[in-house]
């Protein structure tokens, strides 16, 4: 017996399976979500348990502008992918660059906030429980923004060298799933750290 005989001749089957890149990205997002859940649980669990100051309300200010930057980058990346699918490589490139700029602006915001906290307030990861959980959670999210920006920039390089075409729209959408995830995580982190935790 050999494998050829496995094929039922003449049978025409409708056979559509999900895209493997999309499934893998969804799995990765599930894994990342589990990691963030643990850090968020730790943050909430340790709220108000610090033995020494400062407390969140003493040092944290709400980063509204940079939050708007990051969240609006979800819109730009969505429309970028949409334009690419329709074949508009130029408008894709412009929107993609806008996404990178907005993400970088957010990172700059985190950077200035941390600079202020560390150099002006003298508040570090070892100061108290709040410092430990705050820098870990916000830092973990920031790390994901950095990874996202590196991936987006790779695509940008390929766009500028003219290698990105509309048949890559599926892959671009898979990558944009990750970026949307990073944004959604920020909504959770923002709520926990700056709304509930303050």
């Amino acid at each position, binding site marked *: 017996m050999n494998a050829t005989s496995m094929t039922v001749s003449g049978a025409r089957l409708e056979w559509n399976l999900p895209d493997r890149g999309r499934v893998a990205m969804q799995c990765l997002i599930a894994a990342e979500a*589990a990691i963030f859940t643990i850090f968020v649980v730790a943050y909430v669990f340790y709220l108000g348990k610090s033995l020494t100051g400062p407390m969140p309300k003493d040092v944290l200010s709400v980063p509204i502008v940079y939050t708007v930057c990051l969240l609006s980058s979800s819109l730009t990346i969505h429309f970028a992918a949409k334009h690419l699918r329709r074949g508009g490589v130029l408008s894709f490139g412009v929107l993609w660059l806008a996404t990178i700029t907005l993400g970088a602006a957010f990172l700059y915001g985190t950077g200035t906030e941390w600079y202020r906290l560390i150099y002006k307030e003298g508040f570090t990861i070892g100061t108290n429980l709040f410092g430990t959980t705050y820098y870990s959670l916000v830092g973990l999210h920031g790390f994901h923004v950095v990874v996202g920006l590196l991936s987006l920039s790779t695509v940008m390089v390929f766009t500028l060298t003219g290698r990105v075409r509309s048949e890559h729209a599926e892959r671009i959408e898979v990558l944009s799933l990750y970026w949307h995830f990073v944004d959604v995580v920020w909504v959770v982190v923002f709520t926990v750290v700056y709304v509930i935790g303050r």
Partner: protein
Amino acid sequence: MSTDALALPGTELASRPLVSKLHDWVATVDHKKLGILYIIYALVFLLIAGVEAMIIRIQLIRPHNDFISPQVFNRMFTMHGTTMIFFVVMPVLFGFANYLIPLMIGARDMAFPRLNAFSFWMTAFGGLLLYFSLVGANGLYGAGNAPDVGWFAYAPLTSQTFSIGHSTDFWILALLVSGFGSIGTAINIVATILCMRCPGMTLAKMPLFAWLNLIMAGLVILAVSPLTAAQIMLLIDRYLGGHFFDTQAGGSAVIWMHFFWIFGHPEVYVLVLPAFAFVSEVIPVFSRKPIFGYSVMVAATVAIGFISMSVWAHHMFTVGMGANVNTFFVISTMAIAVPTGIKIFNWLATMWGGKIEFKTPMLFCTAFLFQFLAAGLTGVMLSVAPFTWQLGNSYFVVAHFHYVIVGGILFALFGAFYYWFPKMSGKMYSETLGKLHFWVFIVGFHLTFDFMHIPGLLGMPRRIYTYEPGRGWDTWNFIVTIGVFFQAVGILVFLGNLIWSYLRGKAAGSDPWDAWTLEWSTNSPPPAYNFASRPVVKSRRPLWDLKHPADPDWNYE
């Protein structure tokens, strides 16, 4: 790759130098080669962790023994547990999943071959990192070498204060690195099963092996990630001055327990679901009947997957979590016995009225049924919180989970080894040596782990390096240690059988068991491309349909 496979066998094998053959193995992205690498890697670590277990048991053979020091004893049980879970059982299960899933679903390879290779090497280097602690961990502190904090590494033992040197760091990094590998493999398994099935193989027509591994991979994604998060926190505590588990700064030691067991309990099901998968393939073939209650088996598996995420704190009944929390975890833990029991009944019903052939794989799977049932029953006993208050952290617990892992998972694994060895190597194993392995090992297993329950009931705590004579523990410990030597002989017979059969065994042919799943339709060992043309299936047992065209399965499904 493809040119090698197309060349006439025997013409070019002799001419290629060893270095080039080894290079093929190191640089491979082929799911079959990676599967075999996983399995060989796990067998090497099985020997290492087995020797560690023997050292532990020799130390405990009689009271006031001084075979090893208390410090070395701590390192031995830590390394034994960590190695067995992360570097023996998980890799060997990933190895079988890697090798078999693409073949069973009629695919050319896994969904992401290079991610597959990356994941294997992450796991492999994770294991090397753990054992590098033996030479690299003392640092300048004159501290101990191997990790000695126990496999669940409770805080504050892992803080810089109590764990100087780098042994704990090696433990953290080894698990972190191999954790990335595990998550990568799990993502790959899910993507392969959902996106690579051959035409006609709907989810409801997949072999149960694929179903169980799909749920296993989902659990890895959701359970290993919390461990990764907890390890990152521990690193922050140890190196950046964080206070997550630092009780003096208001941190909590109990939250480490929660984080660890949120990983730790689903992990048990990560290990046991593939064992269920092996049994679900072997029992029907050797009973000459299709599996009983396919859809119920799938439903029970999904149920186990869900419930297993909500039982973790039954590891913590002795911590003092309060009546409400305890009650929740008592009930959820008892509930998980229901789908597991359903599975046992389904396997029994598959055997019932079948024409059972007790070849070596079937012997191991039959023993699995009885032993896994007994292990489950002590599990139900331990799910009762007041019972755990009495026996938590005693040898009763050690006996319970070794009954699960050795009596359940390892027996199913041995069955899988014998069942698929002809497919992977192209050679038949020696049935005589296989039966010898089974009988020697089962005697050793029962000597060790049946009798281990008793010193536990008599109050012997786990992780003590020695004990006073005259507490009624002496005889039991003696018997337990004697059993270990039987098991060691069994393992050596097993390895000898694999090696001897690989070199001298008879050719197996493509389908030695007259089986029904797709992997038996291609050559043994399968060519690099798996199938000459893409299979199309119409039922759960495509090879049955092929062999019995007058009475195909799809008439009955």
